[in-house]
């Protein structure tokens, strides 16, 4: 109990790391619900990996002496975020164009992209041994080094993303659910798709830089899956998924801190636990409801 209270205190040494992971836990599922609804779950695997390759590429440039943003370690980090965003954005653009054309096998394209990103990440690190430690930390999902300034910048960006996801939920829902209807209503489907993909790219690149690709993939897919059976509309779906993500991040952080385990894998395991509980309770709830209806029907068959 004392450890629990300790990590909640504002002077807790790793408070930015805690708030950062919980924030990512809250925001990523808001974007992830559209991966699930549009049946693009595999994008959720490939894009964080592409983002990682972007970060590795930035570290490689630094290692090779190309100081695009010369100066402190903070600026190295900013370059990594920009590179990660550009890689992710380009990958989304290519996938979206190919998806719209409707030719070829969608899963095959994503598989190729995933393999290429993995290979790219390893090669970029191999060309820059100095970046290896940082990349290993990133892959494990270590975020202890997040600074005050970075944290506030992240808070602003994720705040804007959350606001966009709620303010434009009707538009995102309509263009995802029924594109033809959206066009007949005079909606700019391409414009809304671009905005959604831009938000996806931004969330993934910032998230990967904060908690690593494994956790981002986990947050994009697992909380929305846990929330789906209980959702009664797009707002409740968003809120429930976001809550599951935030809860998993907080609990994962607590377990990781108290048991001295790597943060990323612990968060993903906790999120999977939440998913299992959700599925199980929903299944039991459905059976109980069915039984109750049968009993009612037996007691008063004519009503």
């Amino acid at each position, binding site marked *: 109990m004392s450890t629990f209270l300790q990590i909640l205190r504002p002077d807790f040494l790793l408070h930015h790391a805690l708030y950062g992971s919980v924030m990512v836990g809250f925001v990523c599922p808001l974007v992830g619900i559209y991966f699930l609804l549009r049946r693009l779950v595999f994008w959720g695997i490939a894009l964080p990996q592409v983002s990682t390759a972007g970060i590795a590429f930035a570290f490689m440039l630094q290692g090779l002496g190309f100081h695009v943003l010369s100066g402190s370690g903070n600026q190295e980090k900013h370059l990594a975020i920009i590179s990660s965003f550009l890689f992710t954005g380009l990958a989304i653009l290519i996938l979206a164009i190919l998806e719209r054309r409707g030719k070829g096998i969608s899963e095959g394209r994503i598989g190729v992209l995933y393999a290429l990103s993995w290979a790219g990440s390893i090669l970029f690190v191999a060309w820059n041994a100095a970046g290896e430690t940082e990349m290993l930390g990133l892959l494990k999902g270590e975020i202890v080094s997040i600074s005050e300034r970075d944290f506030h910048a992240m808070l602003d960006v994720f705040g804007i993303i959350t606001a966009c996801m709620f303010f434009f939920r009707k538009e995102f829902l*309509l263009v995802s*659910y029924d594109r033809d209807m959206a066009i*007949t*209503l005079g909606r700019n489907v391409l414009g809304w798709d671009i905005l959604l993909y831009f938000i996806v790219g931004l969330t993934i690149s910032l998230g990967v830089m904060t908690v690593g690709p494994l956790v981002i993939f986990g947050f994009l897919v697992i909380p929305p899956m846990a929330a789906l059976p209980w959702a*009664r509309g*797009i707002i409740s*779906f968003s809120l429930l998924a976001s809550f599951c993500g935030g809860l998993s991040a907080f609990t994962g952080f607590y377990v990781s801190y108290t048991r001295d385990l790597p943060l990323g894998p612990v968060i993903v395991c906790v999120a999977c636990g939440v998913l299992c509980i959700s599925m199980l309770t929903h299944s039991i709830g459905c059976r109980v409801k069915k039984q109750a209806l049968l009993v009612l029907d037996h007691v008063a068959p004519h009503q």
Partner: protein
Amino acid sequence: MSEPLLRLKHASLGYGEQPILTGVDVEVQPGSFIGILGHNGSGKTTLLKTILNLIPCLKGQCVWQGATPDSLRFGYVPQKEKLDPIYPLSAFDVAAMGTYHRFALRIKNKAFIHRCLADCGAAHLTDKRYSDLSGGQKQRVLIARALAAEPQILTLDEPLAGIDITTQKAVLKLLKHLKEERGLTILMVSHRIQAEKGLFTHIVWCDEGKVISGPTPEMLANSKLAEVFKTEL
């Protein structure tokens, strides 16, 4: 005769560079109930999508009253199988999508959506999950969604596919009622005609890349088509 709501002039329709229908001349008069008929793969849905401006004409012209497609308000009822059941939406949520083009007050919108559902005999379905509804119930909700767009032209893509005869009759009765009460212009894609022929004021027949259209009595009297309508559709 009044000015048509839209007119296709010598149009070639299709996807990419591949025309599916050529030399299409079709007029949609206000207040008409048009049946777009033909066998599977004959281009019925392609014709409907061109009218809705979802795909462009490859050749020729599509002229909308008021010059642009945005000047006409369409209500669109897609084939119900096209909508993914994974979405956790209630019947109300689905019907509400029809109002997503306007920024009306929330309360006014809510009452209006309830009225659209009630007009389609779906008031009791409001809170039910859309994916749990039967085929006929889904169709009613989709028609309510199209009405929520306050359309001048209601377009339906195979609304009777996959539902039983009784429900088909109920849906047709609803469409007839909407046409008479609201004076809607209706375009309906179908690959059958027996139950609907009394409703259609005009028939557009798609076959082998060509389109023949005209008032229903004239089309039924066409010796070539009469045989097709009697036996195959």
